[in-house]
Structure formats: structure tokens, C-alpha cells
């Protein structure tokens, strides 16, 4: 019974990890501009992230190393430094996008400029991490994140075109706006391949003291959790395709995206969209901020655990204490949270190979994973992911200019 509860909790947790500002924004963009045609990108991306999450969790179960910890040990400090700089830059932008997402959610229901909310959101975020434990931070936000099931309900209410959606799982090229199509595809992949999520997941496994007996649970969590997260993302694509695209509405701002919930839910639509966006982004911003602390602490050999009091791991606490205000300042300075989101998702795609390639090495190293090494299918799949991620990284910047 306890392990069933753990699995259920793991699934809920994964929904929270999967669905954030990037997933919501890119799914809404895709549905409004191309109908259900881009569902195949979500399907491929979800399959990839299931494999990667399972590997990151298995690494932690067997070696008791988080991903960053193992990368630093196996690939050396020089490689880790590159990863640290890259992930610091990208994670700060993602953190800004997530804080911006919460601020926009509050703006949608109050009408007050979102910039006013950025410092308030940042303070609430910091306070929760400062006072909370790992399970409070993780499970609390994830349970609240179940509100995003409203997207699934909305999709059902609208009567989705199942037959066409099934056909859209087969990859296809666009009939118009090719640059925009591929840019959104990069964004979707970037929103699924978020490097912070892999290290956060493996660090969480260490925090919760996972061991060999948790390997099956890790597998179930990775597959079902990411699967459920994908169902919600698919619902957003369908809802956007059914309610925005047919009216000629493209998603250039969150104000337009929110209209997708009005048709199925009437006057509850906007508050529901705001709640989904706000809670999903708040949960994700907790994860990104904590991941920055994990990144520095694990790489530089500092004390680290969200379960310790801040005075017992002062440098761990210092990192998120500095990162969160920087994220809030970026929201105020850079403006347009949707653009920050799409740009940071493209950067995620750029950074993905830097973390996926060492994961492939680690998952074949007997020293770390003993007899639990990758099977040939896993290796081939991760190799394909690395190639895909490299290709995405190469095209991401020109596509940003052409289609962004």
C-alpha cells in the first residue's frame, strides 16, 4: 500500500515537473497556429523525456549520485564548469519565465501590471524554500498542480477530433509558415528536455533516499508521470486548436492564450486558466531555484539538502536566495514573459546535449550503475536524443530569428 502511495505521489510530482510555463506556452502556440498537426512533436519529446528521467532516477538509485554530482566526478571539473555556466544562464532565464508566468496569472485576474507581482512572487517563493522541507515543497506544489487537469476537462467538453489527433502522431511537415512551425517544434522539445528537470529529479531521489528497491517505482513514475504530464500538454494543444485557431487567433500573448478556457468554462474560464498557469509556474519555479542550489552545491562539494536548516547548508541557501531576486529582476527588465519563455525554451534545447551526452556515458559505466546499465535500446534511443538535441541546438538560433 505504501509503495502504491509512493507511485501515486511520484506520478503527481511528475505532472508538476512536466507542466510549466514552457509546456503551456508552446502547446498553446502550436494548437492555435497548426491545429493538432504538431502532436507528433509532443509524442516524440515525451518518449525521450521518459527515457531520460528513468535513467537519471536509476543513476541515483544505484550510485547514490545526483546527475550533476556524477558528471563532475566522471567528466572532470573543466567539463562541469562549462555545464555550470551554461545551466546557470539558462536556468536563470527559465526561472524568470516561471516567475513571469505566476505574475501574468495574477495580472490576468486582477488587471494590475504583472511587473508589480514579480517581487511578491519571488518573496513567496524564497520563503517557501527557506522554511519548507523537500517533501512540502515538492508534494505541496504538485498536488495543487492537479488543477491543470482542467485543461483535460475542457478538451473533453469541446469534443476533440480523436481520429485526426491519432493521425497527427505521425510526423508531418507544415503546409504554411515552415519557419514558425519548426521554431515551435524546437520550443516544445526545449520545454520537455529542460536540463534542470533531470538533475532536480535525481537530486530528489537522493533527498528521499531512493535505493535499489526503488528502481521499479522510478520506472513507473517516469513512464506514468511523464505520460500524464503529456496528456495535459496534449489537451492544451487540442483546446487551443479547437477554440483559438478556428477564430484566427494566434498566441502572441498570455491574454490571447487564456481565451481558450472561456468557450468550455464560460465565466470560470479566465480564473481557471490563471490558476493553472500560476500554480504550474510556481511549482516549476520552486524546482528551478532549488536546482540552481543543487547544481552549485553538488558541483563544488558544499553541504546540500532542502531538508537541512538554512544555517546547516548556508551556501546552498545563499544560491537560491540570490537566484530568485535575479529572476524577478529579469522579469521586470526584459518584459514580455511569453517571449522570455519561448527564448528560454530554445536555449534549453541548446543546452540539452551538454547534459544528455554525459548521461549516456554514465549509464554505461559499470562503476556507477553496475549491472543496471542501459540496454541496447536505451543506448540507441539516448544516442538518437543526443543527435536530435545537437540538431535542434544548431537550428534553434536561426529559427528564433525567422519564426520567433
Amino acid at each position, binding site marked *: 500500500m505504501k509503495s502504491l502511495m509512493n507511485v501515486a505521489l511520484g506520478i503527481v510530482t511528475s505532472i508538476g515537473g512536466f507542466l510549466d510555463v514552457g509546456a503551456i506556452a508552446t502547446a498553446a502556440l502550436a494548437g492555435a497556429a497548426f491545429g493538432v498537426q504538431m502532436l507528433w512533436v509532443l509524442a516524440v519529446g515525451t518518449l525521450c523525456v521518459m527515457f531520460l528521467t528513468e535513467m537519471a532516477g536509476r543513476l541515483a538509485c544505484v550510485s547514490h549520485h545526483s546527475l550533476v554530482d556524477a558528471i563532475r566526478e566522471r567528466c572532470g571539473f573543466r567539463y562541469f564548469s562549462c555545464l555550470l555556466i551554461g545551466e546557470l544562464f539558462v536556468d536563470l532565464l527559465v526561472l524568470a519565465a516561471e516567475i513571469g508566468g505566476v505574475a501574468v496569472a495574477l495580472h490576468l485576474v486582477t488587471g494590475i501590471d504583472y511587473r508589480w507581482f514579480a517581487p511578491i512572487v519571488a518573496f513567496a517563493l524564497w520563503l517557501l524554500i527557506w522554511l519548507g522541507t523537500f517533501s512540502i515543497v515538492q508534494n505541496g506544489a504538485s498536488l495543487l498542480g492537479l488543477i491543470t487537469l482542467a485543461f483535460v476537462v475542457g478538451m473533453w467538453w469541446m469534443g476533440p477530433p480523436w481520429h485526426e489527433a491519432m493521425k497527427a502522431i505521425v510526423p508531418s511537415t507544415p*503546409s504554411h509558415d515552415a519557419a514558425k512551425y519548426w521554431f515551435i517544434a524546437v520550443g516544445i522539445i526545449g520545454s520537455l528536455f529542460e536540463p534542470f528537470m533531470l538533475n532536480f529529479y535525481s537530486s530528489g531521489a537522493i533527498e528521499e533516499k531512493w535505493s535499489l528497491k526503488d528502481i521499479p517505482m522510478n520506472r513507473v513514475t517516469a513512464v506514468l508521470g511523464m505520460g500524464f504530464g503529456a496528456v495535459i500538454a496534449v489537451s492544451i494543444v487540442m483546446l487551443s486548436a479547437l477554440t483559438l485557431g478556428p477564430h484566427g487567433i494566434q498566441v502572441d500573448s498570455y491574454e490571447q492564450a487564456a*481565451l481558450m478556457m472561456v468557450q468550455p468554462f464560460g465565466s470560470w474560464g479566465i480564473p481557471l486558466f490563471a490558476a493553472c498557469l500560476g500554480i504550474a509556474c510556481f511549482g516549476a519555479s520552486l524546482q528551478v531555484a532549488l536546482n540552481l542550489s543543487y547544481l552549485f552545491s553538488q558541483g563544488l562539494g558544499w553541504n546540500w539538502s532542502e531538508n537541512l536548516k538554512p544555517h546547516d547548508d548556508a551556501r546552498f541557501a545563499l544560491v537560491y536566495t540570490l537566484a530568485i531576486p535575479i529572476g524577478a529582476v529579469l522579469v521586470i527588465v526584459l518584459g514580455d514573459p511569453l517571449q522570455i519563455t519561448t527564448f528560454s525554451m530554445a536555449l534549453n534545447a541548446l543546452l540539452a546535449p551538454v547534459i544528455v551526452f554525459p548521461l549516456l556515458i554514465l549509464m554505461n559505466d559499470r562503476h556507477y550503475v553496475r549491472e543496471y546499465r542501459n540496454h541496447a535500446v536505451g543506448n540507441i534511443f539516448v544516442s538518437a536524443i543526443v543527435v536530435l538535441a545537437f540538431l535542434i541546438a544548431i537550428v534553434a538560433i536561426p529559427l528564433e530569428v525567422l519564426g520567433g
Partner: protein
Amino acid sequence: MWLTVALATAVAGCSKSPDEVAKEARQSAASWAATLSAAAERWGNGDISSSYFQTVVTQARTSLQKEAQTARKSAGDAAAAPVNTVASRAELMADAVKRGDRAAAIEAGHAAASEVPAEKIPAVARPQ
């Protein structure tokens, strides 16, 4: 060094032509016209609050202003014309919100949507 040069060349090679800028400006204007029209109808039905409708109108005006500037700079006044058309309707809607005149907002929304019609994307858009 070579990577920087290659990247810079790629980015430079991808800069948009005036025709592309004009097309994008028209698409953006049409999308905002459709948004304003749909939002006005929803406001008329009481599905969205006055404050949310005002938020949509304000965002539309800000975005259209930026779009008009970009279009004018890169592709001339003709490219900015559809954007200006929708922007002027958005101004009327902003006044309508202040007065609480739902009928006027709906009328302005419909006018914007018919003057700069948007390409409607069916949910089951056909691939090439």
C-alpha cells in the same frame, strides 16, 4: 572563432525581408483583430469580466503599437496600414470599456475583424 563566424553568418542570413515583415505585421494585426472581436463578444455575454476585457484591449494596443513601428521601419507605411486599422478600432474599444458600452465594443471588434480578416486555422490543419 570559426563557430562564432558561422553562427553570426547564419543569423545574418536569416534576417527578414521587407515582404516578410509586411506579411508578419498583417498576420499579427489580423490575429489581434480576431482576438478583440472574440473578446468583445465574450464580454457582451458576460463570460469575461470588464477588467479582463480591458486587459486584452490594453495588451492589443501595446502590441499593435510595437508592430506598427517595426513594420514602418522595415517595410514602409503600407506595411503598417493594417496594423494601424486594427489599432484605431482598439482605441474605440478602449473608450467603449470606459463607458461600459458593450454594444459599441462588439461593433468595433467585428469591424476590425472584417477590415483585416484573419486566416482561420482549422483544428485538423492538413499537412503538406
